[in-house]
């Protein structure tokens, strides 16, 4: 059996390599995370929209607590909720709060038997309508026009509806390629909800994670897919997290005659105009967004951290409390604003979230 020594040698080499290799930017405490030493691991799964912010939060939190490893896996909100319910994730990142029928004591494997979950808004981001049109830098749309473009009713850039809100802009006589998310996503849900609420006559479909197939248009996979399709194509338009749309043109949306850019301020104010879902625990901060108020940029994504009220394992509860306490702090929110371009929670809301986090056991 000459094969065995060879395989063994290969394995030994690989093993030696791996053991020699702790990454030089990781402290010895962090390097031994995997061994069941005194170090702890906190697992979060969920929204890919939160990824950039979570990356920053994790980095800062781990730097302050070198013995703790936080893994935030951007698998998607659905995966986050499923794994949180199954107890596989310590907390979930989700682009929507849990529904009433998903709540209730005893439904969460990682929580104590008498504990339900809490929905805490941690990440607010405007959804920008991005475009890449030859020779055009700024565009303004009313929501009817946006709904018309994405539902396939407006097909040319020099359409009268577009020209009306963009006086003085030379629009090309070219096809519009409208790019939407091909995968299910919270971004699509919030975007279609916006169109459905603000121009129900044009956008006849209810809000959904899946972009309605009847409306056609070009599908791209993931936020980065949309960004690349729009920036790599020509005469394209799409929607994506404003933070990801760095160099692309971002359209202004006309709300009651006022053109609003997808800025952090215009987005954050939406929670001040919205109400929490009725009939829940005082510490549960699930909101029903009101997208039609004055001066509020309507296409906003509010992403939540879903946690237990009481964890089965008190040590995990303490970890979650510490981590979310940092996220909800002014420091955490401004860190995310610079690193991920999100809109910081208002001071009043920060206080509410902090109170809720402090109640986690």
């Amino acid at each position, binding site marked *: *059996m*000459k*094969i065995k020594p*060879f*395989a063994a040698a*290969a*394995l030994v080499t*690989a*093993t030696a*390599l*791996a*053991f020699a*290799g*702790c*990454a*030089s*930017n*990781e402290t010895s405490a*962090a*390097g031994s*995370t*995997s*061994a*069941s030493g005194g170090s702890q*691991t906190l*697992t979060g*799964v969920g929204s*890919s929209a939160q*990824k*950039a912010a979570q*990356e*920053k939060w*994790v*980095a*800062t939190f*781990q*730097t302050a607590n070198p013995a703790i*490893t936080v*893994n935030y*896996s*951007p*698998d998607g909100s659905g995966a986050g909720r*499923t*794994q949180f319910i*199954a*107890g*596989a*994730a310590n907390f979930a990142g989700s682009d929507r709060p849990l529904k009433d029928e998903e709540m209730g004591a005893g439904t969460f494997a990682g929580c104590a038997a008498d504990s339900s979950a809490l929905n805490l808004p941690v990440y607010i981001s405007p959804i920008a309508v991005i475009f890449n049109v030859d020779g055009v830098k700024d565009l303004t749309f009313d929501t009817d026009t946006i709904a018309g473009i994405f539902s396939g009713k407006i097909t040319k850039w020099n359409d009268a509806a577009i020209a009306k809100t963009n006086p003085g802009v030379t629009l090309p006589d070219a096809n519009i390629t409208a790019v939407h998310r091909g995968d299910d996503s919270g971004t699509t849900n919030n975007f279609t909800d916006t169109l459905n609420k603000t121009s129900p006559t044009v956008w006849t479909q209810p809000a959904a994670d899946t972009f309605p197939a009847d409306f056609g248009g070009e599908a791209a*996979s*993931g*936020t*980065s*897919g949309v*960004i690349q399709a729009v920036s790599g194509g020509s005469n394209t338009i799409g929607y994506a997290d404003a*933070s*990801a749309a*760095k160099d692309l043109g971002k359209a202004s949306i006309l709300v009651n005659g006022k053109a609003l850019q997808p800025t952090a301020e215009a987005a954050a104010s939406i929670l001040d105009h919205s109400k929490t879902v009725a009939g829940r625990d005082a510490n549960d901060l699930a909101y029903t967004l009101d997208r039609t108020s004055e001066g509020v940029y309507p296409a906003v994504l509010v992403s939540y951290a879903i946690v237990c009220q009481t964890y089965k394992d008190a040590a995990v509860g303490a970890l979650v409390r510490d981590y979310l306490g940092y996220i909800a702090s002014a420091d955490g929110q401004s860190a995310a604003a610079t*690193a*991920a*371009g999100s809109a910081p929670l208002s001071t009043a809301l920060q206080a509410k979230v902090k109170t809720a986090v402090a109640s986690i056991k």
Partner: protein
Amino acid sequence: MATLSPTLASGDLTSGRLPKFTVPVAIVASLALGYVLASVLGGGNLALATLLAFVIYLVGIEIAARIVEGARQASDHRARNLIVGAFVLALVPLGSVSWEAISKGLARFDATYFSNSMRNVVGEGGGAAHAIYGTLWVTGMASLISVPIGLMTAIYLAEYGGRNRLSKAITFFVDVMTGVPSIVAGLFAYALMSLVFGPGTKNGFSGAIALSVLMIPVVVRSCEELLRLVPNELREASYALGVPKWVTIVRVVIPTAVSGLVSGIILAVARVIGETAPLLIAAGFTASVNNNLFANPMMTLPVFVYDSYAHPGTDIQAYTDRAWAGALTLILIVMVLNLVGRLIARRFAPKTGR
């Protein structure tokens, strides 16, 4: 020779041939024409120009050969040109992929990339050390599972099975297994681990199982093929000396085929090391080094590349650079494995006389 007919005089054999300089002259001429035409038609598109040049060249040679050499020679020319054209065409994507991977990958192909992980890194900097170790662990584990199973099955098929029903079934289902879509293997491993170790279990071992499902059939196929190449005389000689069958296999058959077996296995490893979809589902995602196959998610290089591409932060360039550097690393690992496999195969190539 009286039988030589006058029409086949030596002059006629070579007459009616295009002069030797035709081909280079025709290439240059058609290229020039193609570029001129393309700049008139399509604004100087390079691909269009080359395509036009090729068509012009084909037609030109066809006409010339038809006039000078006749229809049969012309069709020979046409076939040759198309075949060489196909080869050149295939080099375009290969060249493009290599060029993009090298030119874009080199931006971050530095010491930091190989010594640092992504722990506590936001935006620029950081590296893929965690992913490289993870890939080595997961692929190593997958090989440790697949090689014994695959090799023993190959031995069964080649030495014991004959043509009985079981070996026929195995051969058929091994073929089926080569067709299992990689994502299905990932789903399987994830569901299996969830069943055994509780829901949502993602670790390196789970990824290794997914890779094994993909790797085992490749190992079986190549090993079986190689064991069958071992000449029967060697086995017969061994039996004649009274050596039991299993000792014959272990001491005679396998050593004879070892070089081929090793290279076959290395090629199988090279085949699965770049799998993304199953590892994304089964092995999970982390930014830190994890050297424990059985606990917590483990990052792998393909997942790292995909994640850097799919979920960049605000500093997109840094993430894209890391993705390309990861792709380059992956190609290099696979290339080295391929080369090693081939070198071993060549080194021990003569399979008899040992």
